[in-house]
């Protein structure tokens, strides 16, 4: 049976891609950010996941307003990124896991999640940057990927509770998969930031810190907020913490934080990183 080895949540700021390309890991601006990742690299080297199930949000690459899904899931043999408008570097195609995708789709639709299924799908920096952060220097990715996209573009967004429940259902579905797989669950985005409006530049360290402190042990604390409340607390793009809630939901049951990092600012954003494992309280 498949087993969830842990959950990783990380920011996905586009500027990180350029910093990786220019090898700025020791640059004073970037060092406090990149220094968060080696413990996660060591953990990944130890647990050796076969598959990454990644909750992320598309930023206007694969989806436009003519067909904007609340929840979309990939069921493609591989996933490519592409120019997002500012010539982002392309990465090697990420291999998919179609049988696992279809297993998840069967289970989730059976649990009344109204998915949009994507047998071909471009993935943007919100997926590729976390992958590059977690498996640096990969010419060939050591994991297969199943992307799950949550709408943050067009309001109404799914509620935080709905995203958390989606994650829980994904977790149950993974654990019901008959193949002997080690699965890492990833949530990308956040933490607090706002790009648009007179409130641009908004960052809320106090909220982020409490959110990270509570996520493993008390995920419902954040899941109970409304979308409008979360936008007020974390900014229009800080709402990407929905991905963190979904990943935490997928981890299921009781969990503990193994490692975390938090640094302000990267670009306009409060950058966060967490590694959680299942654990009795």
């Amino acid at each position, binding site marked *: 049976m498949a087993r969830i080895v842990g959950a990783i949540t990380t920011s996905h700021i586009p500027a990180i891609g350029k910093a990786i390309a220019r090898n700025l890991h020791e640059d004073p601006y970037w060092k406090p950010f990149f220094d968060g990742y080696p413990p996660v690299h060591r953990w990944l080297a130890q647990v050796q996941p076969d598959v990454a199930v990644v909750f992320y949000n598309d930023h*206007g690459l694969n989806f436009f*307003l003519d067909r904007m899904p609340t929840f979309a899931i990939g069921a493609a043999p591989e996933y490519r990124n592409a120019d997002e408008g*500012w*010539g982002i570097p392309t990465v090697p195609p990420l291999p998919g896991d179609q049988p696992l995708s279809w297993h998840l789709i069967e289970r989730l639709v059976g649990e009344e999640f109204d998915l949009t299924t994507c047998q071909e799908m471009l993935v943007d920096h919100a997926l590729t940057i976390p992958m590059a952060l977690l498996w640096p220097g990969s010419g060939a990715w050591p994991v297969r990927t199943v992307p799950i996209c949550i709408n943050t573009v067009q*309001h*109404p967004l799914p509620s935080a509770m709905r995203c958390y429940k989606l994650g829980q259902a994904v977790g149950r579905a993974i654990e019901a998969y008959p193949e002997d797989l080690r699965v890492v669950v990833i949530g990308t985005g956040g933490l607090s930031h706002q790009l648009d409006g*007179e409130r641009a530049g908004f960052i809320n*360290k106090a909220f982020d810190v409490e959110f990270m402190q509570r996520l493993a042990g008390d995920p419902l604390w954040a899941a109970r907020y409304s979308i409008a*409340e979360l936008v007020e607390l974390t900014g229009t793009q800080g709402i990407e913490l929905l991905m963190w809630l979904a990943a935490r939901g997928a981890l299921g049951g009781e969990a503990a934080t193994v490692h975390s990092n938090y640094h302000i600012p990267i670009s306009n954003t409060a950058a966060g990183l967490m590694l959680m494992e299942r654990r009795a309280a």
Partner: protein
Amino acid sequence: MLPPLRDIPGTTLFDGVQAMKGYALNKMCYSFNSAANREEFKRDEDAYCARYGLTAEQRDAVRRRNVLALLAAGGNVYYLAKLAGILGLDVQDLGAQQTGTTKEAFKARLVAAGG
């Protein structure tokens, strides 16, 4: 339609009201995922905007490179980011413009948020 659930200062949620206003503008900006389309826009901005049927307000906001005006005309930040790319503006430029300050002051505010 439902009234907005909550008024957040300096913030407009991109809901149905904004979406109805901004469709032409956002569709144009979505086309900028393609480098060829970006070149075409640069070659003849007027013709490109006309082809997507931008309203006068949207056309004017594009001409002025004014982010707050683009948002007021129904622009969605995720699609506008692609227009900003063409114009050579990064997210700190956008932040400084929207908050009426210099880029350096805007960046200093970001750093201060970590204090």
